[in-house]
């Protein structure tokens, strides 16, 4: 058997500790405790192994990666291994001196996450007063040489603020913006009834983004991810299972995607015991949904199977109860009606007509308030 093509990026979840409590956090509901986090030396070995395996980029994320007191050593170690270093941060545990040190250590690209364009929205979503600090970080970023992306996570409560988000970006040194609609797993799945935008909101936002792309061409690159509940076909989740990305959790488990631990029965190898190449090429979790042998109809005979790889396995589990099913957001899925029913609740019976009722009144919601992500012990 020929070994699989090498991964291109290593997503390093350095910690699950975070000063924010975002209601759509991509961390698993079961957070890793600080005492279980990998030490500096193990991460450094993993960066070397990743580079030998063909990985080009490391994405330092969390939690808040700056919660690691060894962050400078980790950046140096990844650069020494030959990797390009991305840091995805809330900007909270940062001051001007620390920023300068990060860049001196070799940071290539800093992605600053925003919860909204206004303090009140950001506070509602992150459960913390955080927006003013992010604006301060943007001022410091103007004085240093590093690539800057602003990451706006989009949902019903802030999707009408895209113009204001663009204003923030245009008055900063950012060369890239991500408008990433929330994907519904974990914490976001629990808060879905408050997060999912209406069709009318989505259509309007896409128009605003399209105009901005034209206007800002050559100045700021805009990348936009739609909420796939509204898509006709699923996203090629992670670029295909075990095809491009490997994620390491704070305690060293190697996962094919952020949410893979929700899939029952999957065993994950750990970098403390196994070499990354062995994990990538032969471990059960990475083999499970690699290639096409696991596919069911309609994916099995579908022309799009090499484009979207059947969509997202975790979403198939969450919505269809079977991780090997076609992603239920696909219009060809026998389970699409479950997604359509949700959209009809939100938009009225003619989903897509753009004339649905207002979002449900708070009283109609099943959960009394947001479920905030706590901090691990």
């Amino acid at each position, binding site marked *: 058997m020929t070994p699989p093509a090498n991964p291109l990026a290593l997503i390093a979840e350095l910690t699950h500790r975070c000063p924010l409590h975002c209601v759509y956090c991509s961390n698993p509901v079961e957070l890793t405790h600080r005492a279980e986090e990998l030490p500096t030396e193990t991460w450094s070995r993993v960066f070397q192994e990743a580079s030998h395996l063909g990985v*080009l980029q490391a994405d330092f994320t969390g939690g808040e990666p700056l919660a690691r007191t060894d962050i400078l050593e980790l950046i140096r170690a990844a650069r020494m291994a030959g990797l390009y270093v*991305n840091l995805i941060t809330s900007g909270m545990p940062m001051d001007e001196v620390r920023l300068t040190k990060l860049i001196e250590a070799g940071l290539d690209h800093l992605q600053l996450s925003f919860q909204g364009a206004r303090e009140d929205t950001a506070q509602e979503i992150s459960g913390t007063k955080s927006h003013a600090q992010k604006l301060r970080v943007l001022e410091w970023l103007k004085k240093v040489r590093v690539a800057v992306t602003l990451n706006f996570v989009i949902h019903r409560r802030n999707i009408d603020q895209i113009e204001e988000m663009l204003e923030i970006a245009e008055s900063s040194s950012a060369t890239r913006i991500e408008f990433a609609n929330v994907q519904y797993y974990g914490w976001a799945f629990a808060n879905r009834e408050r997060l999912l935008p209406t069709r009318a909101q989505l259509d309007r936002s896409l128009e605003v983004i399209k105009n901005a792309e034209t206007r800002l061409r050559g100045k700021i690159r805009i990348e936009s991810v739609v909420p796939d509940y509204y898509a006709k076909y699923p996203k090629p989740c992670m670029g295909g299972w075990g095809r491009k990305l490997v994620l390491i959790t704070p305690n060293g488990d190697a996962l094919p995607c952020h949410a893979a631990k929700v899939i029952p029965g999957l065993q994950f190898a750990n970098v403390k015991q196994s070499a990354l190449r062995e994990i990538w090429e032969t471990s059960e979790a990475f083999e499970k949904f690699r290639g096409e042998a696991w596919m069911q109809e309609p994916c099995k005979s579908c022309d799009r199977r090499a484009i979207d790889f059947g969509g997202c396995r975790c979403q198939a589990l969450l919505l269809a109860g079977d991780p090997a099913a076609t992603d239920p957001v696909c219009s060809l899925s026998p389970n699409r009606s479950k997604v359509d029913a949700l959209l009809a609740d939100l938009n009225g019976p003619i989903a897509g007509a753009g004339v649905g009722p207002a979002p449900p009144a708070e009283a109609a919601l099943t959960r009394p308030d947001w479920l905030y992500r706590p901090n691990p012990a």
Partner: protein
Amino acid sequence: MSPDLQSRPRLAPGCRLNDANKQQQVLLMPERALRLNGPSLEIVQRCDGNHTVQQIVTELQQIYSKAEPKKVETDILGYLTLLADQRALDFE
């Protein structure tokens, strides 16, 4: 939009070649990587804030002297536009 022949392209912050000891040369940039072969590597290596676009064209026309000079220029302008759209270049 085609770049001005007198401007001096320079790799934008966070855009760089990978380490020289790797077999395949790659232009690394935020969340993306471009494989570079002969001509594209020659172009990117000259995006240093010193060469003007015109100088890059002239130098590559000398290196690829068997190719039609006008075609070399068109290809270079096209490639610089692609890099600019990826936000990999600043023009000084």
